[in-house]
């Protein structure tokens, strides 16, 4: 059976996610080789994220390494959960890199969310869908008005609070808050449309 290019990408993503989950099950059984394979599969994206946040490659590698050591220790928990291990890796890497970056800048640590986020992480099929529509979603991010996009980048990749963003941009706090909220609202609406949970057109 022939697949269209988008089908091929979809099946590729499905295989990748299924592979990640299958490897996770083996990691939970303490198979070091499986962790190495999971690292090879997901590592490039995670290292890319860490490098976007941390200017020093060694520091970025250490962050990714620590995330995988943590996964090794918590693998049983993740293997029995319903969430995507790839999503957990992405968010944990971002947060760990931001924590380090803020410490380097001698900024206070950011507050932690109220509970174990694992219960709220994307499910496996949702993460596959996100990956499958990656190119389209990237276009959506690029459609953000420039000021919104810049403010969101400062929040996501610099780990700045809204007050710090206001200082960085030399703008009033209220304007920055409005910009950030408008940017997120835009993404939320577009994400719903792209993911098929809302009947809006892009």
């Amino acid at each position: 059976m022939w697949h269209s290019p988008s089908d091929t990408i979809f099946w590729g993503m499905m295989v990748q996610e299924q592979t990640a989950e299958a490897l996770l099950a083996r990691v939970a059984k303490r198979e070091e080789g499986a962790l190495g394979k999971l690292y090879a599969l997901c590592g490039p994206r995670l290292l890319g994220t860490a490098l976007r946040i941390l200017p020093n490659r060694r520091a970025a590698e250490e962050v990714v390494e620590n995330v995988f050591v943590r996964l090794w220790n918590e693998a049983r928990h993740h293997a029995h959960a319903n969430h995507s291990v790839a999503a957990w890796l992405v968010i944990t890497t971002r947060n760990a890199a931001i924590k380090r970056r803020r410490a380097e800048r001698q900024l206070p640590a950011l507050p932690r969310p109220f509970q174990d986020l694992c219960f709220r992480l994307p499910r496996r099929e949702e993460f596959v869908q996100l990956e499958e529509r990656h190119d389209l979603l990237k276009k959506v991010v690029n459609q953000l008005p420039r000021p919104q996009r810049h403010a969101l980048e400062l929040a996501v990749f610099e780990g700045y609070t809204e007050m710090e963003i206001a200082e960085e941009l030399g703008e009033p706090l209220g304007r920055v808050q409005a910009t950030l909220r408008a940017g997120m609202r835009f993404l939320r609406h577009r994400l719903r449309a792209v993911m098929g949970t809302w009947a809006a057109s892009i």
Partner: protein
Amino acid sequence: MGCQYLEDLYELYLLGTLGEEDSAAVGEHLKRGCPSCLAGLHEATLIICLLTQTVRPARLNSKHKSRLLRRLHKRT
């Protein structure tokens, strides 16, 4: 007052971007188990994944992988 006004804050709450007052308000509300806000929080994790995934993948260093596996071996 309903909690609809929190809808714009979930992603910023998870990112740690909100000021202390707003962050505490979101956290306190979520602790009460509001189903629509917990669903919003779930959607917010997708958006954070989306934003984080816009980066270019980086080439892995084989020495780094070996170091990781050595660390595991020591712990096992």
